[in-house]
């Protein structure tokens, strides 16, 4: 059985077929990249998986469980975390509280316990804080702990978003253009971290990316999309040489 599977996934806005009968599978522990020109439906697929949009048709399976009808907030509970293309951090909060929100799916304390801040809540908070600190160390974010997000540069925010997703201890992570807006050095760091996600933390990665050098460096397999349809699938070099992919990018 496959780890994660999308079957005949479609998303139509009226006559526009943003995603059109897309099927693919992700193996446990691999890094799968989705590439394609602007408007090919890459981010739409992510929004379908994280249940921001309901699919017009098709099914999504994760660990053999049908998650197509799960409410959006339960997706994180299953172990699927994501980042956003345009950064959706909590702007007026410190980095620490942003990362602690990532721990939300592990919080078990009740409202009345929190109002009194009972010792059990305190113990939970410390445990969360410890996990968050591990992620901070993993991504070298120590200097930003108490900084407000609204005052941080774009490149750092991008890493913090990855950190927040990691804090939820996901099994599958969806990265929506992890390198967009980053400079060459930051992109290099990002590619090391993405490899580390796989090798050190054992997290399966599904990512949308435009930077082909990053795709080549990290991906095990690549899917190319155009006009909502899968046009090629395989190793990075195979997909890049595929005539349909060349046509999609350069014009026939």
């Amino acid at each position, binding site marked *: 059985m496959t780890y994660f599977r999308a079957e005949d996934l479609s998303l139509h806005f009226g006559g526009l077929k943003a995603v059109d009968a897309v099927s693919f599978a992700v193996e446990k522990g691999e890094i799968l990249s989705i590439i394609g020109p602007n408007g090919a439906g890459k981010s739409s697929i992510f*929004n379908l998986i*994280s249940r*921001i949009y309901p699919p017009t048709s098709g099914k999504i399976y994760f660990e053999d469980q049908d998650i197509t009808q799960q*409410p*959006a*907030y*339960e*997706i*994180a*509970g299953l172990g699927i*975390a*994501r980042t*956003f*293309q*345009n*950064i*959706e*951090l*909590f*702007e*007026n*909060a410190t980095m*620490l*509280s942003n990362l*602690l*929100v*990532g*721990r*939300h*799916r592990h*919080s078990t*304390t009740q*409202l009345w316990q*929190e*109002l*009194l*801040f009972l010792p059990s*809540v*305190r113990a939970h*908070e*410390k445990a969360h*804080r*410890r996990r968050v*600190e591990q992620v901070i160390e993993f991504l070298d974010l120590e200097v930003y702990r108490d900084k407000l997000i*609204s*005052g941080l540069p*774009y490149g750092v925010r991008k890493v913090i978003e990855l950190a*927040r997703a990691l804090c*939820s201890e996901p099994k599958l992570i969806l990265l929506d253009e992890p390198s967009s807006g980053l400079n060459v050095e930051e992109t290099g760091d990002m590619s090391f971290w993405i490899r580390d996600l796989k090798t050190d933390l054992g997290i399966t990665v599904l990512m949308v990316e435009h930077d082909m050098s990053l795709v080549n460096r990290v991906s095990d397999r690549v899917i190319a999309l155009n006009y909502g349809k899968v046009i090629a699938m395989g190793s990075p070099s195979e997909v890049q040489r595929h005539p349909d992919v060349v046509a999609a990018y350069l014009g026939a």
Partner: protein
Amino acid sequence: MRFLFKTDYEDDIRLMPHSGYLVTYGVLLALLAIAPFVLSSYIVSQLVFVCIYATVGVGLMILTGFTGQASLGHAAFLAIGAYTAAFLQQYNVPFPVYFLAAGLLTGVVGALVGFPALRLQGIYLVIATISFAFIVEEILARWESVTHGNEGMRVKTMQLFGMAISRDSPSFYFLCLGFLILTIVGTLNLLRSPTGRAFVAIRDSETAARSMGINVSLYKVKSFAISAAITGFAGCLFAHKLSFISPEMFTLLLSIEFIIVILIGGSFSLHGAVLGAIFLVMIDPLLTYLKDDLPGMIAGVASTFGAGKESASQIQDKAAAIASANGLKGAIYGLIIVLFVLFEPLGLYGRWLKIKLFFQLFPLYKRATFKRQKIYVKSERNR
């Protein structure tokens, strides 16, 4: 300047990051404790109003400041708390019981208001809460068998453990102060635990909150319920302080007063709620002063600058007419809100932070420190 060296995760959790806090709040508490014995009864009475308004302010701050859900219906929650107390008091229910009932019932009503509000945002939510407030006001005026309609209801002196606590006694002041402190501590506890962080997450990005596993609807309802419950408790104290309640006390103007409390004080901080309450309670004496003394003063100035006796008295009459005009209060509130939003969006607490930083960094303070930077990266698509 003080630099904090954190050596334990506890340092990020504790309410008072360093010993300075203990001193400041200790002194403040001591001053508040001796206040009723040294200050005039008028000022103590005003302090009670500050406590009640600040309690409502904290409640509204949870909903508006931290969860980002605007509400112009908090006067209605206050009314529900007040009327529940007054109604149950008739049947000789003891104070602790009807105090709890007032808060819990209002909390349940708040949750019920929260459900239809789930799909509304921004200005639409404001309209929905205003309508809710009007409905409650109308029910209070019409449901005469319970609320005595526009005649209003008397609220008897509070009986607590066999003691009568009159509304002007120091004990009543301590009760209100104690409840305010309890509310603030509870709210601070909430804010440093998962629920509080979920509120802030919903305020800043609902999409991201949802994808982090936060049940946005549930937490919005929770926020409404908590906010309403705190306001309901405050309503019970409010009823006792006024000793008489009627529907026309809980109008839109009162809801606007609560908005002023959090807006002037500074959204996003509990200090703001208290500072805003102090500010608001001070407006009334100011208005009285405007009515009583200002016209005479203006006439005096006018006659000094050579106006004849008759024209001076004309000027005095005109000034008096303006100062006692209907709706002056509303106009002044409006003016205050506009001025604060334009020139001090962070409110009184923001101003306090700036002053504090000025002295901490002297002479290196830069005005640009608090300049807000606009960054256009946030996507509106996934709202």
